């Protein structure tokens, strides 16, 4: 063995650390604009919300929000760098600045908002926790589940709601803790557990992947409130405003009848001042946010309005077949209500 060989070995060790350090926290907007790409956290795979299409691109309702935010900030809905996060590592990823925004069907709770140091910027989907089970079990209510094995995703609010529900009803269960929705589905189909519990939308999404969805049923009990929404780090109000109003633009666009198809023509100016303010042909809302005047045009052009986004990935024409329900606009009998663009 010669000296040169040692130096070779040492040189191997000199392999430089990959990946550049990037700047996070304080001025997220400037950082995203400098990077030219939005780092957005989504699910590791949940049909309807975040999943890969045949081309290998991440799409879905949550991914659509990321796209909208990128369009708002960068004018390009495709300038998104998706980070797939588990229920467990989503919060550290956001806290550390690894991602700029998190849209991973995350429930808005007191402790997450206050104690964990995040800012929820609104509700993109009103949900509640339900149960799915086989029809062959012959039961019609979750309260009959005494002694059942229940699959749950660890690190989620559903894990805690589940314990509460069974304790309040004085019945027992065997928890089968699972890391991701996909694994939970595998365990449920293998009959490792009798029922699977998660957000009702997640149940619908999971059911679409079953060979015979009609063999399974969602029990009527909704055991919790699960307002799902995007969130950002606390302490950067400017960025939180952008994230919040991107969501509001989607909802207001539906209310005002602005769609992906007509947004370009409406952007030239319309007879509705509210539309004009939103799309930037009147007033200077974009400048107040530190963005372009036509930022909202880019948002709607990239993903459409809330209704289009919903129907594309979750609605009755998709495999999930979810009705708008309480996620309809307030004037259609739902509870979706965005503040005015003024």
């Amino acid at each position, binding site marked *: 063995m010669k000296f040169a060989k040692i130096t070779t070995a040492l040189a191997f060790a000199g392999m430089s650390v*990959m990946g550049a350090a990037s700047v996070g926290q304080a001025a997220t907007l400037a950082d995203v604009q400098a990077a030219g790409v939005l780092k957005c956290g989504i699910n590791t795979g949940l049909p309807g919300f975040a999943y890969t299409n045949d081309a290998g691109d991440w799409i879905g309702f949550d991914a659509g929000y990321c796209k909208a935010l990128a369009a708002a900030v960068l004018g390009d809905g495709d300038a998104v760098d998706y980070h797939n996060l588990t229920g467990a590592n989503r919060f550290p990823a956001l806290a550390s600045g690894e991602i700029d925004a998190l849209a991973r069907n995350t429930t808005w709770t007191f402790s997450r908002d206050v104690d964990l140091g995040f800012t929820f910027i609104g509700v993109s989907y009103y949900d509640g926790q339900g149960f799915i089970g086989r029809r062959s079990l012959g039961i019609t209510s979750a309260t009959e589940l005494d002694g059942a094995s229940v699959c749950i995703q660890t690190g989620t609010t559903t894990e805690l709601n589940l314990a509460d529900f069974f304790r309040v009803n004085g019945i027992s269960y065997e928890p089968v803790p699972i890391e991701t929705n*996909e694994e939970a589905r595998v365990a449920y189909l293998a009959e490792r557990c009798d029922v699977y519990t998660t957000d009702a939308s997640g149940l619908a999404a999971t059911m679409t992947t079953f060979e015979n969805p009609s063999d399974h049923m969602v029990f009527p009990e909704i055991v919790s409130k699960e307002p799902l929404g995007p969130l950002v780090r606390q302490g950067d109000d400017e960025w939180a405003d952008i994230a919040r109003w991107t969501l509001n633009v989607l909802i207001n666009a539906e209310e005002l009848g602005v769609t992906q198809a007509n947004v370009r023509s409406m952007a030239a100016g319309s007879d509705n001042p509210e539309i004009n303010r939103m799309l930037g042909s009147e007033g200077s809302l974009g400048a107040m946010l530190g963005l372009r005047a036509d930022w909202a045009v880019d948002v709607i052009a990239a993903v459409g309005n809330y209704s289009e986004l919903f129907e594309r990935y979750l609605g009755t024409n998709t495999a999930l077949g979810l009705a708008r329900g309480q996620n309809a606009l307030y004037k259609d009998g739902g509870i979706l209500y965005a503040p005015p663009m003024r």
Partner: protein
Amino acid sequence: MTEGFHRPQTEMIPNRAAPASSVGIVGWVRTNLLSSWVNVGLTLIGFYLIWLIVPPLLMWAFFDATYIGTDRFACEDRVGACWVFLDQRFAQFLYGFYPSEQTWRVNIALIMLIPALAPLLFDKMPGGKYLRWFSLAYPFIATFLLIGGFGLEEIPTNKFGGFMLNITVGLAGIFLSLPVGILLALGRRSQLPFVRIFCIGFIEVFRGVPLITMMFTAAMLLPLFLPPQMSLDLVVRVIVVVTAFASAYMAEVIRGGLAAIDRGQYEAAQALGLSYWKSMLLIILPQALKYSIPGIVNTFIALFKDTTLVIVIGLFDILNIGRSMVANPDWLGLGIETYAIIALSFFTVCFSISRYSLSLERRLDTSR
């Protein structure tokens, strides 16, 4: 009767061939399979087991298997294995989410690994001198190829996945841990108390905890330790903790190599008037590292297998890609096939490296 007196033998009796029962196939079978009744029994049981396992396995894996199709429904009426996913998902297993039009970069980096490793693994190489310079440059070339920049399209590390992620993390971990491990090993033998205590502490802490806790540290704690305006990609953070972890094991391997060196070598180096660092670099370490190579290779094998742990923090290595594919409705129920392929990939790499390490050990043994 004089004719009858016994004449001494004056010529060698020619060697007779061994009895037919102890040579050739018959002899081999007798000594190796049928030497006693117990052995006859064991051999029979062995044959029975083989007969029980091998033909059905071959039928399942090859003859009854389905190879072509687009999803598991192509295997609907199969009895054997369903290898259809290999055709459909091969690229994902290898490259993860690396852009498909850029995968040539990964391939080139992998191919270049062979000449880069050659001078490290083989003593006598034609043109070894030049190859060594290449080995020196390889880590930088590979990093440049995988990440990009300077004209090549930049690929963020969160696109890394599949077997390529396992290989990247494993190789980066082992190469980076080598210098750290050497320093720790020297420090552990140092006479300076603070240096020694620090090195022992570092080594024992990292050897004492499971790697999985280190993975969580990389995912959740490391970001907290860094300045607020700085953030590292998850893959990079994983490489950092894997390096620290492997360094502790590396240090112990190299300590073993250092201990194998004759005291006379130290004394000779001192007699020549060499300083500590000179005597280490020129005399001691070259020999110690030579003795350590089998241990280093074994550390690499262990580390390489452990790279699958990245799945607990949501990275998509080959195992996680397989696992999520099995959960995909199109591929549901192909667990055995998928895991068999992944196991085979790891087995091929680890087994061949361990064979190499074994032959190296034998060679080192004789050269002493």
